[in-house]
């Protein structure tokens, strides 16, 4: 993302090693190495949003799910889980940007290669896109095709973490409430 968040550390003690790349944890690197500040750019004033797709599929079943995205939804990271995940691989999922008619993968991505969960005690499995994907067309839709690879019924959760333009805000940089400030503290 170009630009950076207006953010000052002038009077804040900073950790000199805080921006080092964690060994073997590149997929959790939220910001690019060497960026001085969170590179939010035009995503300033956007709100975090988790779009959740939950499907219960029969053995070897598949389905397609359309997600209507809020304005300016910008996909930043994925997490996923399945109730059944054996050597068969759990599930496959493929994402499409419907408005732009683009596939985000040429075939379904296996659960293990798509994303994992954060909690649960294992290695945290969120997969952060190195550059976010913007669904910036009006009325954008995300199509998710999910295929259960297991021979048993499976509940599959895919969470799409992104930023959205607040629904009551005409454009970034504007005050949240017309005529008023976001906070009541007067700054």
């Amino acid at each position, binding site marked *: 993302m170009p630009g950076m968040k207006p953010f000052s550390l002038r009077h804040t003690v900073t950790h000199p090693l805080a921006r080092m790349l964690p060994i073997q944890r590149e997929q959790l690197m939220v910001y690019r190495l060497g960026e001085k500040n969170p590179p*939010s750019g035009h995503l300033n004033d956007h709100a975090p949003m988790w779009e*959740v797709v939950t*499907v219960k599929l029969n053995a070897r079943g598949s389905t397609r799910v359309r997600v209507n995205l809020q304005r300016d939804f910008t996909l930043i990271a994925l997490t996923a889980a399945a109730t059944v995940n054996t050597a068969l691989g759990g599930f496959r999922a493929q994402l499409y940007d419907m408005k732009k008619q683009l596939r985000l993968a040429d075939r379904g991505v296996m659960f293990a290669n798509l994303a994992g969960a954060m909690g649960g005690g294992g290695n945290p499995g969120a997969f952060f896109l190195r550059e976010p994907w913007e669904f910036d067309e009006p009325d954008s839709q995300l199509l998710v095709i999910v295929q259960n690879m297991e021979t048993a019924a499976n509940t599959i959760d895919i969470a799409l973490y992104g*930023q959205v333009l607040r629904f009551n805000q005409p454009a970034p940089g504007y005050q949240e409430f017309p005529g008023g400030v976001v906070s009541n503290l007067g700054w």
Partner: protein
Amino acid sequence: MYMDGTDPTQQAPSAQGADDQFERQYFEYVLDRVVPANTVQDPNQFQILSDADFEWWWIKASRTSNLLKVLMKEAATGRDFIGTTASAVAGTATFNGIQIDLWAGTALATAAFPLAVPYILPANRSYTILLTDTSGGNNTVQIVFSGFKLWPRPKVGA
């Protein structure tokens, strides 16, 4: 191009501001709850303290069972932070949110979830966390919103 006709790519770097005039104090809002077994959308509210806005950077969460779903709502605006508009949710009943393990994990497991773009929770504003348990047992949950209090920097000479 935004709805008002401005083009963000044409803004001067200074328009974004290199210094936002705030000092940041590490702070965490902590929500503790024992969710009764099989409770659906158990409401838990927390309010940002009145002294400063809060810049939210991380989510941390611990739980007894991962069979727990989370919804988060902002009271003043009605904003849902966790939603679904999925057209087909085969076999699923009411949407009760994101599975807690997909939202955040523990700091112990280095699984705190980082917000790529920090979000400001304004002072005094209330947030509701709705927790749904399907584990069949009481679920002890702690959710931590980690970030900074934003203190306006005193004007020099003022």
